[in-house]
């Protein structure tokens, strides 16, 4: 994968579609990879590449919706554009609900598709950034000891009772020990205040995307 080259994945069981789209998008400078089935895509995808996924809605075997659900579960940084020959309101609603960025009915103009792909790629990039951040946060939180995590939870859960004395009473330890832990936590999480901590935790717990 070349940096700066926007990646586009195509999954469609129709050979002609794959060929024409690959050619068209390739002309426009996209790095295109086409797959004949959902399973073939899953086998090839690394799970981390931020990209736009042009996905056929109705396919034999695992269909587009199923593939999307699977990818969502993995937290993949992909922005899904559904293309369908079966287009209909119910299908599009379902797809959008499941997190698709767009829904195109076949046939469509290339310009439209390119437009949507560009928008989708921005989303995919954002998704990837968020994913990286979260990973970083997770790494940082991963440094905390069990006791420190306990104290963080307490502080986040009860922002009104965050004095070391109160926490110490609740956990059955001395306020001094609590003060010591708090210092360690801020150091490990690379933050300076309680406000930052609450923000971090909320980011970490927020759903992906």
């Amino acid at each position, binding site marked *: 994968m070349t940096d700066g080259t926007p990646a586009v994945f195509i999954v469609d069981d129709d050979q002609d579609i794959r060929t024409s789209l690959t050619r068209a998008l390739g002309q426009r400078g996209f790095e295109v990879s086409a797959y004949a089935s959902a399973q073939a895509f899953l086998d090839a995808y690394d799970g981390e590449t931020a990209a736009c996924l042009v996905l056929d809605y109705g396919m034999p075997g695992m269909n587009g919706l199923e593939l999307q659900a699977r990818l969502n579960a993995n937290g993949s940084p992909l922005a899904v554009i559904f293309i369908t*020959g079966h287009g209909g309101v119910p299908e599009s609603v379902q797809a959008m609900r499941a997190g698709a960025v767009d829904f195109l009915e076949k046939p469509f103009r290339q310009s439209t598709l390119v437009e949507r792909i560009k928008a989708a790629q921005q989303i995919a990039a954002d998704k990837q950034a968020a994913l990286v951040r979260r990973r970083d946060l997770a790494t940082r939180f991963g440094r905390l000891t069990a006791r420190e995590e306990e104290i963080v939870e307490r502080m986040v859960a009860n922002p009104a009772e965050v004095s070391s004395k109160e926490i110490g009473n609740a956990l059955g330890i001395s306020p001094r020990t609590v003060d010591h832990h708090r210092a360690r936590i801020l150091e490990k999480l690379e933050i300076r205040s309680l406000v930052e901590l609450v923000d971090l935790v909320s980011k970490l717990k927020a759903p992906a995307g």
Partner: protein
Amino acid sequence: MRTSLGALLVIGLAGLQFIAVLAVVFSSYVTSERALLDHARELLSDVGTNTIAHSRGFVAPAQSAAELSARLARDRVIASDVPELMEQLFFQQLQLAPQFAGVYYGSEEGDFVYVMRSKGSGPFRTKIIRHQGGVRTTELIWRDDKFNVIARWMDPDDVYEPRQRPWYIRAKDQMTTIWTDPYIFFSSQQPGITLASPVIDRQETGLEGVRGIVGVDIEISDISDFLANLRIGSTGRALIIHANGDVIAHPDKSLLKEQTADGTLHFVDIAHIDDPIARAAFAQLEADGQVPVEQETLSQFNYNGETYVSVVMPPMSDKLPWTIAAYAPESDFTAAIKQNRLTNIWIAGAVAVLTAIAGLALANYIHKPVRAFAVRSALVAQGELDPSDPLPATYEELEKANETLMQQIAARRETEMEYGSTFALSSRGMAQIDAQTGRFLRVNEKFSEITGYSATELSQMPFTLLGHPKDPPVLLFDNDQRGTPREVNHEMRCLRRDGEAFWALVNAILIFNQEGKPLHIVLTMDDITSAKQTEEQLAELSKDLSNLARDNTMGQVAAGLAHELNQPLTAIAQNADSALFAAQQMGGAGHGLHETLDEIAEQALRAGEIIRALRAFIRRDEGCRSDFDLSELVSQTQRLLSAESRAAGVSVIADLGALPAVHANRLQIAQVLVNLMRNAIEAVAEGDDLDRRVIVEAKVDGNEVHVCVSDTGPGVAEGITLFAEFETTKAAGMGLGLSICRSICLANGGRLWHQPREPHGAMFCFTLQVGGMEATQAA
């Protein structure tokens, strides 16, 4: 005909006895009558015989006396010239025979000696006529019983000439002893007869001459005395009639004589005798010329209202042509017997009445326990008396009969109770209907429940009233019962009491009695309304399904076409755009190329628009989703396909358990089920495995219900692309079935997939959304 024991006993004991007594009385009555007549006849016959004997004994001595005298005179032992000797002989003869009135001898010379009984100076008188020297003298001598002379004198006035008398002339003419007809004696004026016997003088010349005639007068009034003394019954009489009709002897002697105009006396004719009964009895004898009759004749006659019996005897002898006739009133013989008979009848009647009463009493006594038994049996039969109550004293035979009867009654009651409880507790409506009137005789509770009418209301109405008024009336059995089936089954629409219509399955059986006459109808009724509704629902579903299948097929064809066409159209549009892009990149190309490529892409898009419009047109009312019971739908589908599964020998098993309501288009899901199940059945039918099953299962998984249709068929062969449109393994099929099913499932928010089944067979599963979700979300 059945006879009453009581009547039999009365007839047997009283009636027969009465008849027996009557028969005996009657027979004795008849036989005694005969015996009486015989008795009377014998009695009269005896009288006749006695009279004949008496009469013969009366006249026979006269003959011997006369003939003796004649012989003496012939042998000249006595001669007229010595009249004293002759007188002595005659005197003795008179003394010996009291019936002799007189004995006399007249000679050819005119001499005459006559000794007779007298009522004058002495008991006997002698008259002697002599001729001496031409001088005729007549001397009369009266003597006593000792022959002493009492008086004697000469009678110069006597002119009697014996040779002129009829007896003399007849005896001399006939030269033998003759009897005169009875006549009234001149001297005594008593009836009598004269016997004259000639004294034959054999001369030397050989010529026979008459020397004189000896005569004897016999008074026959003694015979009348004898008759008067005879007892014939109490008032019967006997008389003697001469052959010429003269009555010569009669108990009443005064009736015999009759004086003629010249002053002479002669006998009265039987036709004129002053004895009316005798006249009535015997006058016709003379008229018929049958006096005397040839043989003893017994006859009967009525006189003055009284019945008489009479007998006429044959004549005594040739010389005495007399006949004895006797009569007597029958009552003389029969009165006592008749009286006796009457008494007997009275006694018999009394005996008959008494025995009849005794017979009635006895019959009553014998019949009483039987009657009591009959009354008791009737009470038991009506249920007013318990069979276990002690039996009153009765006969041994009846006791056994009672035991049997009570057992029968108990058994019958038990049967009736069983039948009754079967009838009453039956889960089906049951009724008993009069075969003639069609009215309800008896119904059970279930029947009332089904029809809504109470048993009392039903008992007032005929069966036909139950039928729906808009339907033709249902006749259970024809009025003409011949040849009709004895059992019928009807499916009929009925009206409940509240006016609600319901469908009933009616089974009616006609019961006949032993004579073959229709007795009643036993009717069983089931309410099949809900079954009928289910059937209708099923039919409706089937109809909707076929409509839907058609619509869906068209839709799917359109959808399939759209998809198939959209792919190349997409490729065309992309390629046109790509070419356009390339031309722009190269630049400078003719303007026409840009427009043309753009036009191509636009037209491809337009074609897509047309297809979309077509699809939208066919795809209507797909959004009609609601909550429904999947189990019910599966069971209806199962039934819908039951004919096919039976024909294929496949058993369809639905194993659904408790499921929540699902939210989908019920009709579309029905089509999915029909398609999957039909495919499964056909798959199993193709295989030859012994295990021929199609299983429908369902389970809840979160917000979804998983429905799986599996079969034990050969399974899906390798290389077959399932769910592809226009691809099929079936000889007749468009290959749209599974494709449509998948579309439907998707449209209803579910999925459809296939997985192989172990060890063989296929399994198709689809998901449905659990119902009630939208409501939850709305809240």
